[in-house]
């Protein structure tokens, strides 16, 4: 790999050179030598900006894995009791695309108890091989036992790439597997590609989405990446079955654990507008308390919550927990649909960081349209019921 070596004799202004480091990692030693401390992120700005070879990268030889021995793009099947999480299908679609670029196959690894039949479903989405580990001891997800199965799968199949859904399970399991194989893992990738060396090109946001980073794992296999739900496109389900199901067994001793799952209960839908991914927000354009039902239906179809502006709270139609705005709550959902809201700052200041803002208002001059990404001039009583109908028909 590499390290940075500093050449004191080539530096004229030591103070200025030390200030080049954005992480404050450069220090002047008592001997006058310059060194980097643990704050160094190897961003190499000192190499690029320290003129005249003041800092140079010295490459050190590294062991490189024989990449030709690692083949196939594998997808971890996220599920609960055999109900496959839809992120899995999205990842199969992506895996198919990557695999066809390098002539590899697409694998699924499916572990659980009583899941063998459910595995057939995966064959409708384009997996070439589905490796099934069906064992009573795998009834509940436990990180140690699932890591043990993953280890068995990797040793047996040697996939080049493993894609895991960034669900609560995936985000725990993938790092354990990566650490067991001392290999790289990139979290929450938004774009994936692959080059001729079978190196996975991974792009992910960092610093809360303020920067994007392109990351590769060039010297290790397998390469792991997690991807959030609804980032990749789901392939169409084909009626025909493609590929095969391979039943695998694992030594029961490897599935011993001291962790005990005591209870599994359905997730209570947390009804706070701050935690909602989707919000249907109502304003003065809503004519009566009864009409709120119409918009609630839209919110339900989109798996979202109802929120509103201050006048509706004051009218007593909804309780204060639903109010967005300066005197209410600040929300940052992925989607917000503002229905009949004029868009006073009092309201927009509480929601203008939402990812996608749709607004429906009769008045084309309503200030909400300055905040909305998609502004719809129209009557909410016409647009919303028609939209509901359209969504229901599409299901």
């Amino acid at each position, binding site marked *: 790999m590499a390290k940075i070596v500093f050449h004191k004799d080539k530096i004229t202004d030591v103070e200025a050179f030390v200030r080049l480091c954005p992480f404050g990692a450069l220090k002047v030693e008592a001997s006058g030598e310059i060194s980097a401390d643990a704050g160094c992120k190897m961003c190499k700005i000192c190499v690029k900006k320290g003129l005249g070879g003041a800092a140079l990268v010295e490459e050190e030889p590294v062991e490189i894995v024989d990449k030709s021995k690692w083949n196939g793009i594998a997808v971890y099947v996220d599920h609960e009791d055999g109900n496959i999480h839809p992120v899995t299908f999205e990842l199969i679609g992506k895996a198919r695309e990557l695999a066809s670029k390098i002539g590899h196959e697409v694998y699924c690894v499916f572990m659980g108890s009583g899941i063998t039949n459910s595995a057939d479903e995966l064959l409708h989405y384009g997996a070439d091989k589905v490796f099934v580990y069906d064992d009573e001891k795998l009834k509940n997800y436990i990180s140690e036992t699932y890591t043990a199965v993953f280890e068995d799968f990797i040793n047996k199949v040697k996939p080049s790439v493993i894609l895991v859904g960034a669900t609560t399970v995936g985000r725990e399991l993938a790092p354990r597997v990566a650490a067991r194989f001392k290999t790289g893992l990139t979290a929450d990738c938004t774009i994936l590609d692959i080059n001729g060396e079978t190196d996975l090109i991974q792009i992910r946001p960092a610093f809360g989405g303020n920067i994007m980073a392109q990351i590769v794992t060039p010297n290790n296999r397998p390469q792991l990446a997690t991807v959030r739900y609804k980032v990749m496109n789901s392939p169409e389900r084909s009626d025909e079955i493609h590929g095969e199901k391979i039943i695998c067994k694992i030594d029961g001793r490897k599935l011993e654990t001291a962790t005990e799952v005591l209870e599994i209960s359905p997730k209570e839908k947390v009804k706070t507008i701050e935690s909602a991914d989707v919000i249907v927000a109502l304003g003065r354009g809503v004519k009566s308390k009864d009409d709120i039902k119409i918009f609630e239906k839209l919110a339900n179809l989109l798996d979202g919550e109802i929120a509103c502006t201050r006048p509706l709270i004051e009218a007593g139609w909804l309780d204060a927990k639903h109010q967005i705005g*300066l005197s209410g709550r600040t929300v940052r959902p992925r989607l917000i649909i503002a229905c009949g809201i004029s868009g006073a700052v009092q309201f927009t200041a509480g929601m203008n960081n939402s990812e996608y803002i749709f607004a429906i208002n009769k008045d084309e001059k309503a200030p909400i349209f300055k905040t909305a990404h998609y502004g719809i001039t129209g009557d909410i009583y016409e647009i919303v019921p028609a939209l509901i109908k359209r969504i229901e028909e599409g299901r």
Partner: protein
Amino acid sequence: MAKFDKKNYLDIEKIIRDGERVLYKENINEEYSHDELGNAHSAPDIVVKALTTEEVSSIARYAYENEIPLTVRGSGTGLVGACVPVCGGIVLDVSQMNKILELDEENLTITVEPGVLLMELAQFVTEHDLFYPPDPGEKTATIGGNISTNAGGMRAVKYGVTRDYVRHLEVVLPDGRIVNFGGKIVKNSSGYALKDLMVGSEGTLGIITKATLKLLPLPKKTVSLLIPFKNISKAIGTVPKIIKAKCIPTAVEFMQKEVIEDAESYLGSKFPDSTSDAYLLLKFDGNSKEEIENYYDDTAKICLENGAIDIFISDTDERDETIWKARGAFLEAIKNSTTDMDEVDVVVPRSSVNEMVEFSHALQKQVGARIKCFGHAGDGNLHIYVLKDDLGEREWVEKLNSAMNEMYKKAKELNGEVSGEHGIGFAKKAYLARSLDSANIELMRGIKKVFDPKNILNPNKLF
């Protein structure tokens, strides 16, 4: 006064020449009949949304000639009905006069139209590393409204109030004349301070159409201290000692457990400490965390010597959020905990804050209504709320009046004033009359007469 009729409407439309900015009859939104607290209710005959000084001047002249009441309105976030047209007539909405006209970085001033919102101003100057210190809680209020009430806010302890930051005003007089008061100058010894008279005049003397405000360099960091005490009197008793010490906090607030609990349930999130009945909340500003740390050390010692249980430090955005979000929600949270309420905004000398708070607590039993309070311990300005809960209408009015009377009487006894920052408007007229000497009121009436001989500008307010 003359009756407003269709002809007046047509005349006004002719002046403005934009049908969308003149609202008449059924086109007038209901919100123009009240302000934030909604205790005064009265609809205007017409609403005009002005865009320029010239329009304001023409409307004023028309109102003057035809003796039509004229009431100016910004965002309508007031609490005493000052923007409510209690005599009907014209409401002049200046919220669309909202341009920032000039930032003068050499003289450290900013010139704005009256409809610029406090939050917009704050954001704009912050982007230029500058600072407009007055910081009333209601960030969607307009600057025009802030000037008209001489708004105070939390930073008053260290930085003073709105009046201290107004350098120049362009004002339209009731007869339509456009005049200038003050200028970009630091000193001024040239006759009566008409500019200072305009500040806090609640739209009764003239209409502000432009304002030049003083700015300061922006302090880069703030640190807040949340200080728990065994009881409110220990907490408030410490405040004069804090103020006496060298280091002045920008804010000194007091809060009590039950109001914090209201805010918790209103916001659906927890406050970072729940061990004590009473807290002081101090804020310090400066250029670095270290500078502020050295600065507040003495204050910390004073608090501990005076019975503080501990001192909690909030030095990041996340920590500030958990405290200040709760503080910012007090008014809404109290409002949300009851059916209706009215407020008292008295200001008393700092040394008497404790007595006033204890008095209001004791008053609950005496009048038989819930009373909650919080406020600016550092400048003696208290916000006390009388809550209706499930009282019947008649009972409520009775109890409210007796609570109000008692509280204003007590404030006067303590050498306080009726309003610290919300103003008198319509709702507190009676209390101002009772609180001030008749000579004071006479002078005020005289001043009003000089500015507005026909009494058309925001009539029936203040006195």
